[in-house]
């Protein structure tokens, strides 16, 4: 810390006033707590929790189909609408995507995190760290947009696949029902790639943090007891770092569930939860249905968080 000249007290009266305020506060930690916590807590409770509460209330109202007005009477009718087959499909599709993206991210992130935590020299580690942090914080929209350029039919990836002579394979994959489409940029595969890409850093950091905490001595003990490297990895490193994977999955799962930018930029026009919420509240003004739709991911995430807490994932955050 650099030296700072601390000015002498200006005047006696001013200082004694401050002094008595200080003394007064020192003996009243509760009051200090209220003063400190009051503003942020009030803000979060009123703006954030209050809004979530109002959203919950709204999901029990319904939209009168004839007048187009929201009827403020308690009803489960709006929730019942969620169980219409087409809406159930939206949930299934979104959850399947979230699971696929989470698994892919874990598989890609683990080797990199492992390398960072156990093998990289301090200098190289901080370089890699920066190379992970920049994508983590930098514009997510821009990074999704990049895939629109890459996956376009006339774009770089198709060009590259053509150069390698695998256009036939690409066409075969795109012709598969369920995941295919007219081009990579307009198919579930394209969405899957973009989702995996944008959320990858959220998986790397917690896994790396968890791996850093696995003591070297345990690995050495395992090796001394005759375990092969893979056995050590499978029976010692993986179980101990698993909370990191769970912590990362909180983000990859939640972010995929609520996103509408990727499906709107890259998907075929099949709906995902985020798009459904956006369109119900926007064009049709059906806030109750949008609210009920949102409660899906919210409930899933709260259950997920409660389970994750049990595995010790919050310590890896």
């Amino acid at each position, binding site marked *: 810390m650099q030296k700072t000249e601390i000015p002498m007290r200006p005047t006696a009266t001013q200082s004694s006033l401050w002094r008595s305020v200080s003394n007064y506060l020192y003996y009243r930690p509760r009051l200090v*707590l209220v003063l400190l916590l009051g503003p942020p807590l009030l803000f979060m409770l009123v703006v954030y929790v209050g809004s979530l509460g109002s959203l919950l209330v709204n999901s029990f109202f319904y939209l009168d189909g004839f007048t187009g007005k929201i009827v403020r009477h308690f009803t489960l009718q709006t929730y019942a609408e969620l169980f219409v087959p087409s809406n159930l499909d939206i949930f299934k599709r979104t959850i399947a995507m979230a699971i696929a993206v989470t698994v892919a991210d874990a598989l890609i992130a683990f080797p990199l995190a492992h390398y960072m935590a156990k093998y990289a020299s301090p200098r190289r580690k901080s370089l890699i760290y920066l190379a992970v942090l920049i994508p983590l914080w930098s514009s997510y929209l821009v990074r999704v*947009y990049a895939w629109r350029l890459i996956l376009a039919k006339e774009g770089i990836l198709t060009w590259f696949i053509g150069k390698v002579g695998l256009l036939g394979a690409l066409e075969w994959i795109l012709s598969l029902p369920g995941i295919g489409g007219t081009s990579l940029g307009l198919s579930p595969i394209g969405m899957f790639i973009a989702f995996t890409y944008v959320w990858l850093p959220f998986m790397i950091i917690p896994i790396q943090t968890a791996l850093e905490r696995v003591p070297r001595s345990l690995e050495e003990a395992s090796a001394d007891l005759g375990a092969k490297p893979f056995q050590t990895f499978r029976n010692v490193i993986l179980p101990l770092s698993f909370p990191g994977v769970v912590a990362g999955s909180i*983000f990859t799962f939640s972010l995929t569930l609520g996103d509408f930018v990727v499906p709107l930029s890259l998907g075929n026009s099949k709906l995902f939860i985020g798009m459904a919420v956006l369109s119900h509240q926007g064009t049709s003004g059906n806030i109750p249905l949008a609210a009920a739709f949102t409660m899906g991911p919210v409930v899933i995430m709260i259950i997920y968080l409660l389970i994750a807490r049990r595995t010790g994932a919050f310590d890896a955050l």
Partner: protein
Amino acid sequence: MPSRATSPGRKAPLPLTVTAVAALLFLNIPVLIIFLYAFTTDESTYTFPPPGLTTRWVSVAFGRSDMLEALWLSLGVALLATLVALVLGTLAAAAVYRTEFFGREAISFLLLLPLALPGIATGIALRSTIATLNIPFSYWTIVLGHATFCVVVVYNNVVARFRRTSGSIIEASMDLGADSWQTFRYVVLPSIATALLAGGMLAFALSFDEIIVTTFTAGQQETLPIWIFSQLARPRQRPVTNVVAMLVFLLTLIPIYFAQKLTTQAADTEGQQNA
């Protein structure tokens, strides 16, 4: 504290190195593609390789008044949201760090929610509330939405710093005759200054390119991300969008880079600060 377990001479198995490098490339190359396309002469498709290169799109982009308006709005929103977050986030961090109290766990959980719940939940919740209260959607409602997650970012950074700062220096300062203000100004503030700066910069970057919550809390206004998103549907002058996307990326890169420098200087590559 994670132990620094790297021992010299420990070589990574080749497959691990290869997959790690592949992951790093996957993480960092795609954005560079935008840089290339910002200079293509191809106006309406994404042909690769580009038929030619030109710098004229930069001047075209800065001549577009709709883009400039969006840019100023985004900067204004990010600035105010960051200021609000700095004040509220620091207060919350000081409270949670200083004292044990009933409900402290609940408050840390509450402060995790805006990041752990899908942004769309925050967005639609705010929108329905604002609409119910008949508040017009404006600059202020955008700031309000951004402040929720910016507060959390600042809080995370500052509380991590508080945990590493010994509480006894505050007591020592008081014992040496400093009053609360002097202790805050000359002891507490210098020790959390870099965490404040780092948290503030990250909050700024996060707000500057936020789109999900903004879509719900903005009325007719277009922030820069919303402007980019609305351009996606237009096939003409695509390179202009690419120039702006490049600009947004570079503008967020600078604060992130410095925030990272500040945190590593303070914590010496600890790998702790988190989203």
